[in-house]
């Protein structure tokens, strides 16, 4: 049998393997910042990727258009019914908004956790091997995107920015099993119940909301929104709806399964939410920033912003 490798080749191969394994461990440890060569590669590859994903988006948009054209009649019927309601709701909304402004004036509150500035972006690529749910979008630092910003579609929250380069950024979707990935959330009801979105049930394709205080009453069908208490996400982004309430492994707190409002399957256009109210960083000497870097949005004790 002929020799598979000559001796020289074998040594070269071994050295190569060792270097690569070292690289793997290096990049696993230091996952949350991109160094300069990485940034350059990402920007250059991202630019090339645009040439391919833009036409692809154009085609899928076209198919969607045809699809919605076919449903126009039905949709029109339905929307006409809603239109009557809409006028009433609109009137009420403007009334409530005015009242809200007046009340805020009285209290002297200027900032609001809900305020955010939307940055529109297109999806360049979805991690094709789909082990980690990540997408790359075509907006980066030069467009004002920073790490940990919330990313959503018109339907609801889908994830957050984990890595930025000058012209692209990487978004990790909510559907991840990464234990360090948390989003502070809020169950809307008579009393607001707080919890943390942690983990994803791949079988049911539902998010898991953990650490809800056992004294809070929560039921199936209640809506879950982002709470804004983590310090980076704005308040009020829709996450999903509760489908099941259980107690956690130790029986101390409640946990709930949440059906996500947004569809993670076919993402094309996303909105990055740049929060208007800045994080308060007073006497703790930069700890907020540090905490922000470490635990992203989900700091358990929030930073009081």
């Amino acid at each position, binding site marked *: 049998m002929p020799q598979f490798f000559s001796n020289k080749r074998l040594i070269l191969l071994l050295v190569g393997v060792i270097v690569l394994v070292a690289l793997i461990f290096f990049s696993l440890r230091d996952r949350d910042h*991109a160094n300069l060569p990485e940034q350059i590669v990402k920007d250059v*590859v991202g630019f*090339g990727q645009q040439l391919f994903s833009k036409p692809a988006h154009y085609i899928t948009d076209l198919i969607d258009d045809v699809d919605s054209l076919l449903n126009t009649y039905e949709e029109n019927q339905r929307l006409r019914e809603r239109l009557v309601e809409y006028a009433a709701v609109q009137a009420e909304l403007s009334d409530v908004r005015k009242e809200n402004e007046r009340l805020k004036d009285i209290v002297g509150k200027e900032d609001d956790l809900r305020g955010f500035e939307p940055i529109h972006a297109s*999806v360049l690529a979805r*991690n094709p091997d789909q082990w*980690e749910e990540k997408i790359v979008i075509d907006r980066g630092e030069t467009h004002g995107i920073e790490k940990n910003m919330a990313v959503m579609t018109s339907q609801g929250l889908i994830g957050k920015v984990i890595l930025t380069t000058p012209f692209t950024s990487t978004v990790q979707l909510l559907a991840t099993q990464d234990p360090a990935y948390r989003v502070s959330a809020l169950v809307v009801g008579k009393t607001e119940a707080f919890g943390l979105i942690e983990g994803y049930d791949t079988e049911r394709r539902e998010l898991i909301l953990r650490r809800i205080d056992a004294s809070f009453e929560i039921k199936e069908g209640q809506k879950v929104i982002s709470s804004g208490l983590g310090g980076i996400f704005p308040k009020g982004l829709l996450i999903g709806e509760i489908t099941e309430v259980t107690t956690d492994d130790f029986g101390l707190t409640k946990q709930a399964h949440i059906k996500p409002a947004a569809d993670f399957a076919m993402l094309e256009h996303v909105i990055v939410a740049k929060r208007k109210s800045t994080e308060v960083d007073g006497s703790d000497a930069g700890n907020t920033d540090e905490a922000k870097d470490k635990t992203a949005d989900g700091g358990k004790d929030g930073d009081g912003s």
Partner: protein
Amino acid sequence: MTRLLIPFVAVVLFYLEPVFGLFSPVEIGGVYYYLIPRFLIMFLIFVGVYYNRQRALMYAIIFGLLYDLFHIDIIGLYAFLYPAVCLLAIWAVRHIHQHIIVVTLITLLLVAVLETALYGFFTMIGFIGMPFGEFAATRLVPTMIANSVFLVLLGWVFKSLANRRSIQKREGML
């Protein structure tokens, strides 16, 4: 001009993978199936078998690195797996046969090996906790089917491309 054709096709396939990735997962009867495009590695195996081993390995390392940097953020994973799979394929073909059907089958088998190796790696570092049975049913088998369709459609194009280039090169040397 054919000199640049092989790297050009490789670049196109590299960019097409994420575009196809946008359509996955596919839902059929409440179960989600993941189709993972592996066009580039299949092309590189063909280049390695029918044209030039060194070239194929070089492309495998370069594109593996790009893949790591752009998509995975773990440098060295694909940069190791791509050339390793390429080498295995070339070695296997040398010992069996160069016929296109044999090469196609070996390529598909190695795509499965690549997929399983990735599953093993991500399980090891704790990114995923998926039992092997589920992995095989929702990822491995659909991926194999999708990629075999691609390869059956385009395998002969890859072969003729690599062949034409190697004939050209031989003529150039004479």
